[in-house]
């Protein structure tokens, strides 16, 4: 292609010896044209971020580029000196990162940080740089840029920080922008805004954008062309429509099939007595110290909901909406400040921990982080057997049960004597589920159990949770930020915002005729919602 801005040809990056494969990236080739968005999509460990780092000359020393070339403006970037690379970095090729919280210097006003980029490349004087910084902040849609230019990063929300990062990246009008999972850490509505912003940039300024992501919804939303990576190789490369609608490689097909569908299932009428009744539960924190005036923060505000036996309710909301706080009130990891919770007709608010202990068997929880939720110093068998042992089962019997449960969640029963670090994220989540099921609970609370997992693993774990639910006749409260996941698993969906439940209904009702403005905004923000109609 003659209009190619950037050509990557046969690039291989070595992994240190002892890795699971000899190359982090092996023999990849692609081009990026002016005004094009090329999405590199893959699961964790596929080498997508390494490819982006290689172009920026940011490869760590242990991972040298051993073969191939990266051609930009007539130069091979791999052969360029440090000084040569520095001149290109920021000016011609800019990059934005996943974590807007850590990518900005916390003790420097954002305007100064933008000006720094200009200064580093010898642009203008302090006054003109400030003007340009305000201009850039306006361009990326920051409200009241004249004030924000002097604000410190902690004053800004995650989405605003990511906008500042984009402003910094755009300061010198680069011809290429590399985005490494820029919206992964953001809420879905913020993500939608950032994606629109990136789209606009590409259309107005003709920037070539290399967009690294794991999320097919985002890909469907933004890509012109797609490169799918697996184990360090590009297994499929083509236009958006070709790859999404007619994937050729089995791995691509598997990935696309794993993306949960926005199903408009009707409610299976459950006419059983309620197992869980939450009545106007509130949790208020008081912010402020000894001398500062105390201000209330309402994490949960008068939330009420009922769960029938055998029903699955998905609690959906963005970060800070209070969904996790509400869940933790039910298992009494947090004491609510108001309202009542009944489980199986018994009130559990206000009773002592000792009175609550026998009831704990009935209510179990699966946690979000597969790496923090298992004690790293304990063997898997012990971790699963702990619950039954605590409630009086003999140790040997509990160990036998742990073996059965491991088999049930699809792991080798022989692995009871292994430690958590020997398992992958998905396998750990299975262990966490086995631990919760060991007490044979009636109510299972799942707090974002699949959010930290790759999409294909996520599909497997979701399926396992659904299987277990049916087999053990569980009632489930499933907390998620992902409406796709919610629609796949839930009989009913409750939408939370600022600590309040704003809407509750069947997936059919929520997606078909959302009543609340916020629900509509959430649905519109689902990445790739337009792709949903054309999905096979």
């Amino acid at each position: 292609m003659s209009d190619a801005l950037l050509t990557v040809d046969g690039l291989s990056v070595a992994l240190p010896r002892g890795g699971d494969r000899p190359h982090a990236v092996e023999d990849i080739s692609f081009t990026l044209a002016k005004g094009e968005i090329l999405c590199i999509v893959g699961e964790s460990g596929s080498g997508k971020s390494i490819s982006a780092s290689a172009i920026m000359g940011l490869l760590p020393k242990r991972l040298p580029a051993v073969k191939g070339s990266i051609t930009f403006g007539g130069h091979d970037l791999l052969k360029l000196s440090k000084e040569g690379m520095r001149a290109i970095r920021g000016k011609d090729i800019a990059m934005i990162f996943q974590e807007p919280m850590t990518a900005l210097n916390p003790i420097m006003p954002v305007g100064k940080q933008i000006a720094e980029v200009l200064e580093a490349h010898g642009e203008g004087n302090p006054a003109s740089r400030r003007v340009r910084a305000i201009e850039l902040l306006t361009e990326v849609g920051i409200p009241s840029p004249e004030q924000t230019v002097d604000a410190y990063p902690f004053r800004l929300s995650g989405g605003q920080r990511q906008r500042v990062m984009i402003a910094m990246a755009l300061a010198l009008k680069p011809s290429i922008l590399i985005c490494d999972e820029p919206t992964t850490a953001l809420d879905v509505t913020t993500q939608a805004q950032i994606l629109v912003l990136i789209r606009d940039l590409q259309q107005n300024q003709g920037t070539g954008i290399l967009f690294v992501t794991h999320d097919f919804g985002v890909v469907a939303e933004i890509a012109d062309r797609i490169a799918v990576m697996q184990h360090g190789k590009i297994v499929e490369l083509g236009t958006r429509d070709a790859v999404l609608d007619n994937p050729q490689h089995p791995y691509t097909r598997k990935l696309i099939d794993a993306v949960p569908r926005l199903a408009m299932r009707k409610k299976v009428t459950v006419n059983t007595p309620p197992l869980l009744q939450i009545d106007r539960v509130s949790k208020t924190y008081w912010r402020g110290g000894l001398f500062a005036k105390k201000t209330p923060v309402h994490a949960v505000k008068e939330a009420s909901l009922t769960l029938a036996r055998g029903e699955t309710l998905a609690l959906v909301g963005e970060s800070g909406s209070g969904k996790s706080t509400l869940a933790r009130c039910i298992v009494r990891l947090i004491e609510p400040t108001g309202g009542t919770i009944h489980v199986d007709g018994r009130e559990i608010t206000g009773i002592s921990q000792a009175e609550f202990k026998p009831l704990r068997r009935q209510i179990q929880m699966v946690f979000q982080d597969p790496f923090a939720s298992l004690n790293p110093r304990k063997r898997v068998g012990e971790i699963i057997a702990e619950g039954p042992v605590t409630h009086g089962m003999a140790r040997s019997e509990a160990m036998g049960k742990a073996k059965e449960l491991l088999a049930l969640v699809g792991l080798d029963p022989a692995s009871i004597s292994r430690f958590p670090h020997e398992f992958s994220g998905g396998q750990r989540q299975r262990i966490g589920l086995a631990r919760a099921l060991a007490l044979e609970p009636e109510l299972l609370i799942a707090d974002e159990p699949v959010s930290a997992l790759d999409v294909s693993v996520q599909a497997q774990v979701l399926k396992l949770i659904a299987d277990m639910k049916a087999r053990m006749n569980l009632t489930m409260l499933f907390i998620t930020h992902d409406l796709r996941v919610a629609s796949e698993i839930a009989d009913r969906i409750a939408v939370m915002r600022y600590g309040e439940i704003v809407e509750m209904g069947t997936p059919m009702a929520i997606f078909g005729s959302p009543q609340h403005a916020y629900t509509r905004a959430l649905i519109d923000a689902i990445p790739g919602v337009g792709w949903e109609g054309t999905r096979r």
Partner: protein
Amino acid sequence: MSGFWKRFASNKGAVIGCFIFAVVVLLAIFAPLIAPGDPWRMAGPPRTDAFDPEHWMGTDMLGRDVWATIVHGARVSLIVGGGATLAALLIGVTLGAVAGYCGGWIDDVLMRFTEFFQSIPSFILALLIVAIFQPSVGSIVTAVAIVSWPPVARVVRAEFLSLRSREFVQAAVVLGQGTTQIIFGQILPNALSPIVVLSSFMVATAILLEAALSFLGLGDPNVMSWGFMIGSGRSTIRIAWWTSVFPGVALFLTVLSLNLIGEGISDALNPRLHDRGEA
């Protein structure tokens, strides 16, 4: 764990430290065999020069064999070092764990209590305690333990503060485990590494404190100690240097070995801290 031992063994300083410390331990265990008899008795003519064929480290003003005092002095050093460290760990780990896990006013009360001990110069406090109770191995161990637990409490509290919010602790609460079980069964095993590192340095400090107390004449009068020998040889250092130099070297090597071991454990537990430059 095999990775830990490999990294520990590849650290030259740590291996040398282990070797020196092993020699000290062997001397202490087999003291009655290596230097039979009472180290306090007169074994030869007073002020025998060092490198004498009979007494290779010489004798002091009262004819005591310096080598015998070193061999027997190793016992009291190790007893005080080990005993005081164990006692300090017991106090420090318990208070630190409770403060870090419970938080709130319990944390406030326990930490103010800890700071109270930290605000008193530790050596003066130890002197005072030994002077009030008669000088004996028991009172010295108590005194050293009382002045050395606050840092343990602070380190353990900090570890607990960060570990208690982990999801595996919440999972244990949801399973119905009690507070004691969670503190000692779930969190403490994860906080062990800094405690192990800290305790090897504490043994060294305790040995030094004991030597300093004995030097000032507050040692147990019934047991031979390096600090006592350095103190008693101090006035004759110009005519009989060996009476204080050899016990001093013994003290120096023992403390050095413990510091090398502590550093070796610390490096082996946190290999990344030192590889950063290569990444």
